[in-house]
């Protein structure tokens, strides 16, 4: 799902690009027809939740993955989105499929909140930033508990939709798919834009970027607001689907940790990695939850899985996988040309240096 940028594509590059394009198209088709083929409500429910997480992690990665600022406060936007559509649905008595048109408003309110949030949190870097985002998150959770209009610890319940039970999940699924695909396309555009390059420069060396004319605060804040707005829309969708928002489920610290783990599993900062992480992790979590009903066996299994991932794939599936593919390709090419000269089809310059062991990985 990612594409090379600077170097003119060699023939091998073109083949890889075609393969990626084909793979993306197949994935899209599968995603589009999934609820038509699989009608079991249990599985379509998994699919909706998975789509929600794909969209959320893509939105998170658009800011955190590109800029290197790891936010553990995106649940603020998720919860804000849920409560926004909740209050609006109640107030305006919106019913039926028109509810989904409230989602842009959820995005808007989250964006408005992201501005002061970002202006405060983005003044500090790295670990301090992470801590500040967590602190601001808890302020919002407390507000959800205590403000007069939030329903306190009763939360807000969504209306019941009179849709056929067989296809009840489908509208949620397709709205989730639209948000997810839209976010991934936006991420791709940003990755190849001036704005995206500025974000990546900030990730690598913020002060240097500033010294080369990049208006860093503006760039960081823009990405933060876009990311927050999308997360807000995802939160709104989640509320419609789940049917209830409580302060501890809408403003849920586990949401932040899950999204970050999905991104790290797949490949932090890459385009395809976080999506892959969500596609693997969310169904797995759901499956574990219904298979091990005693609650803790499943969580232990997931914990073990994470330890394994960190041991075997410290930089995530996509960057490590790409490195392995490159080295296999090189080995294969060497075997084909015993003189040692690389055939024209092999990549001239490896995109990722094998010496790099940075846990944050490369962009691609």
């Amino acid at each position, binding site marked *: 799902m990612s594409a090379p940028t600077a170097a003119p594509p060699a023939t091998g590059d073109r083949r890889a690009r075609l393969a990626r394009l084909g793979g993306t198209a197949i994935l899209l088709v599968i995603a589009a027809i999934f609820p038509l083929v699989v009608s079991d409500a249990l599985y379509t429910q998994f699919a909706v939740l998975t789509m929600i997480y794909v969209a959320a992690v893509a939105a998170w990665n658009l800011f955190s993955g590109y800029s290197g600022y790891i936010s553990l406060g995106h649940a603020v936007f998720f919860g804000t989105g849920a409560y926004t559509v909740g209050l609006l649905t109640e107030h305006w008595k919106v019913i039926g499929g028109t509810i989904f048109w409230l989602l842009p408003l959820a995005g808007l309110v989250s964006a408005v909140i992201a501005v002061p949030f970002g202006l405060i949190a983005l003044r500090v870097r790295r670990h301090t930033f992470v801590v500040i985002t967590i602190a601001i998150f808890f302020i919002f959770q407390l507000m959800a508990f205590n403000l007069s209009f939030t329903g306190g610890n009763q939360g807000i319940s969504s209306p019941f939709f009179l849709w056929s039970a067989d296809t009840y999940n489908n509208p949620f699924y397709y709205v989730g798919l639209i948000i997810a695909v839209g976010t991934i396309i936006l991420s791709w555009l940003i990755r190849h834009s001036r704005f995206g390059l500025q974000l990546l420069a900030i990730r690598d060396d913020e002060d240097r970027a500033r*010294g080369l004319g990049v208006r860093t605060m503006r760039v960081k804040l823009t990405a933060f607001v876009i990311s927050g707005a999308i997360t807000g829309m995802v939160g709104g969708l989640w509320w419609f689907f789940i049917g209830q928002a409580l302060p501890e489920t809408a403003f849920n610290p586990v949401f932040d940790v899950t999204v970050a783990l999905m991104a790290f599993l797949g490949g932090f900062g890459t385009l395809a990695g976080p999506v892959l992480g969500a596609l693997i992790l969310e169904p797995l979590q759901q499956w574990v939850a219904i298979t091990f009903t005693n609650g803790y066996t499943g969580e232990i299994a997931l914990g073990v899985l994470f330890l394994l991932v960190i041991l075997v794939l410290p930089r995530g599936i996509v960057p490590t996988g790409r490195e392995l593919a490159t080295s296999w390709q090189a080995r294969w090419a060497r075997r084909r040309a015993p003189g040692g000269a690389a055939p024209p089809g092999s990549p001239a310059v490896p995109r990722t240096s094998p010496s790099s062991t940075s846990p944050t990985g490369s962009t691609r």
Partner: protein
Amino acid sequence: MTALLRTAGVSKAFGGVHALQDCTLDVAEGSIAGLIGPNGSGKTTLFNVITGYERVDSGEVWLGGQQITNHAPDKVFAAGIGRTFQLTRVFSRLTVMENMIVAAQHAERGHGWLRNPLARAGGPATRRRAGELLEFTGIASHAGALAETLSYGQRKLLELSYVLMADPAIVLLDEPAGGVNPTLITTIADRIRQLNEQGTTFLIVEHNMDFVMGLCHQVTVLDYGTAVVSGPPEVIRSDPRVLDAYLGTAEDGDDIPVS
């Protein structure tokens, strides 16, 4: 000749340490100026103060007729001061070409800020200009490689290249020859001379005395945060204050004793 860059009575203290004390420096337009002094004499701090990475306690910084005291780094760069760092700082996980394009942000933004923010990074004009500069510094063959794969010397060249993307009026180089092999030092000196002939002014901090004395028109000596003497290389070389503060203790003029 008029002064292009001027610091007037600049002072900067870190806690009780006075890194700069009433430091006044003039860099004539079109010249190559050198800045020497023992370690800890305030050379890099002066660079940081000029380029907005540190705020001055008192004093003023002027670029031509424009006062730029305490301007933010991006504004200083936009005003026409390019700068490299003592320890090279490149965007390691971006390609060399992408590094160049990052530095072209200001030039590209010139088309008005309603320009599509999602426009592809680096238009054809930017890429052509970047290619020419990389050709000029001799690292064009690495344009598609990640910057982290470059050698130390190549990174210095990349830093020089991307600073030039914005066509700065003056370039501040912090130890361009430090840790670089002799052949590359000659290349770097040649490139500086060529750029200078085309009108770029330079201010260079360097410990390699042959490099400084061979290249610079004017050399200023900094000691304890103050510019103690300034003049052409041949005068500086024999100034007793300089010998005392700096050169006198060096065996061959190549090395700097830690003061």
